[in-house]
């Protein structure tokens, strides 16, 4: 071992900076997860703070509140909704793009749909406020124009799963359809030609050639997305929902809950327990979704 290290000293030294950064910002927090079992105070830090008596005290606190049911349910249901609808729209758009013959039209349309991916969730939050706010929001104005009652969206929790879904699709459809389109551009065109000769209509070609060819990509991407359910997009929820407590019943997720208990109420025990719960569930999901993805198509998963 020593010989290998001295022989390739330069190569191993090169890896050091990145290894150290991962140690500090990834491995230390992994070890720090034990904070969930500690009676934390900042002056002692994570490792010197005393253990909880009993050890699971923080968890008892977390699991006896109603919060954990709400945030778990919201996290899982919202993400499943996003994955399902998102995949349908992304695949649909990729198929449409694939059918377009005019190159410049295709390229322009693609550029326009990709644009939202380039801006931050903070900016998206401003956009959303612009469209939805009660006084001058465009959606409210449009509704008023048609003579209906204006809606105060920020007081209607039941509308938000759909609103966030629309915004989610808006921001990600361009990006994700490119990935599917990348698969489609690799398709052998003689397949379509022979289908045409056999008298297959355009819809039949899509149904029996395009979609089956896309299926492996769809399955793999869906599996990987399911793996990330627990680490739902904090930025999206935080910048769209923010401090609108009225909306929490339907769109408060684990991430936003942990963040609020940490930075807002400073409830360290609660946030550490919720954080532990999230990390463990996330790991289980990532691990198994990758295992299944690998079985389905080797080389598609992370490991």
């Amino acid at each position, binding site marked *: 071992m020593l010989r*290998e290290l001295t022989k*390739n000293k*330069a*190569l191993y030294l*090169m*890896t050091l*900076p*990145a*290894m150290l*950064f*991962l140690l*500090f*910002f*990834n*491995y*230390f*927090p*992994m*070890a*720090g*997860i034990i*904070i969930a079992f500690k009676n*934390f105070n*900042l002056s002692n*830090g994570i490792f010197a703070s005393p253990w909880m008596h009993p050890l699971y005290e923080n968890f008892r606190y977390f699991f006896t509140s109603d919060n954990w049911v709400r945030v778990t349910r919201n996290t899982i249901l919202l993400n499943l909704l996003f994955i399902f609808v998102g995949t349908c729209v992304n695949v649909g*758009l990729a198929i*449409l*793009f694939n*059918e377009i013959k005019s190159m410049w*039209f295709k390229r322009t*349309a693609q*550029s*326009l*749909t*990709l*644009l939202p991916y*380039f*801006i*931050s*969730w*903070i900016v998206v939050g401003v*956009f959303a406020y*612009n469209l939805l706010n009660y006084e*001058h*929001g*465009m959606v409210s*104005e449009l509704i008023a124009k048609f003579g209906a009652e204006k809606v105060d969206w920020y007081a209607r929790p039941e509308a938000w799963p759909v609103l966030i879904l629309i915004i989610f699709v*808006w921001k990600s*459809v361009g990006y994700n359809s490119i*990935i599917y389109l990348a698969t489609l551009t690799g398709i052998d065109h003689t397949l379509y030609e022979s289908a045409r000769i056999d008298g297959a209509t355009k819809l039949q070609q899509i149904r029996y050639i395009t979609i089956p060819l896309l299926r492996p990509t769809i399955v793999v991407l869906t599996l990987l997305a399911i793996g990330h359910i627990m680490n739902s997009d904090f*930025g999206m929820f935080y910048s769209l929902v923010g401090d609108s407590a009225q909306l929490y019943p339907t769109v408060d997720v684990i991430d936003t809950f*942990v*963040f609020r208990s*940490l930075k807002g109420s400073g409830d360290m025990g609660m946030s550490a327990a919720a*954080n532990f719960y*999230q*990390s463990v569930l996330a790991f289980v999901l990532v*691990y198994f979704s990758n295992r299944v993805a690998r079985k389905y198509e080797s080389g598609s998963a*992370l*490991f």
Partner: protein
Amino acid sequence: MKARSAVHPGQIVLYAVVILMALFCVVPFVIILASSMTRETDILTSGYNIYPKHFDFSAYRYLFQRMDVVLTGYKITGLVTVVGTIASLAISAMLAYPISLRRLKYRNFISGYVLLTLLFNGGMVPWYIICVKYLHLHNNLWALILPSLVNGFNIFLMRNYFSSIPEEMHESAKIDGAGEVRTLWSIVLPLSVPVFASVGLFIALAYWNDWWLGLMLIDKTELQPLQLLLRTIVSNVDYLANSSILATSIDQMVPREGVKMAATIITIGPIIFLYPFLQRYFVKGLMMGAVKG
């Protein structure tokens, strides 16, 4: 179109749907742009719109009179983006290169070390305490750069690209007496411009759009990155007036809604401006990544 009998109705539907989708994605941008140039009273009486009824640039004028505030945000985000992107590319390449070499014995161990960070993370609570208590990043400009400097996905993207370069190329350099660092710099790097362009673009975009690090670790308003500054302005337009040392006029009527929109435009301006040039590399990088992971 109508004159040509060959146009299939399906084609019309196809184009119509794609056009609608593109509009759906772009219209919010148009609304913001239009509102930023609309007379304030129009917004107050008839709401936001996709075109300005009366052009009015007083929102921008108001913002430019307090330019020092916006410039501070620009400076911080610009600095963070430039330093962060260069440092991140360098450090990532220095790890990705060795693990792309089949002759390196412990490369699988190092890959595993990187991979584990993608599979498991400790979550935001211990991360936050480590950053604040042990690394002293609270209210420190480095807090906006260091935590996201190394990302496993980028490393694997680079490694995959590097390993497609035949190792005989390295051998020829070695015969010429070049060391490992030299080989990376003068043989591998010039051959890997596409992956550096794409990964660099991912990183730069992430730094420019970042606000999570600022939200977690920065409380001082003068260290706020651009995105958080925007959020501050949108939630409290008076912040501009209170923290600017340039403008003194107090009686001026503040076009509140317009200023929020103009601030948004100024925040996304550089991205929109560079978008047509950068988009190509972005899509290329996306396709590289789509092949694996």
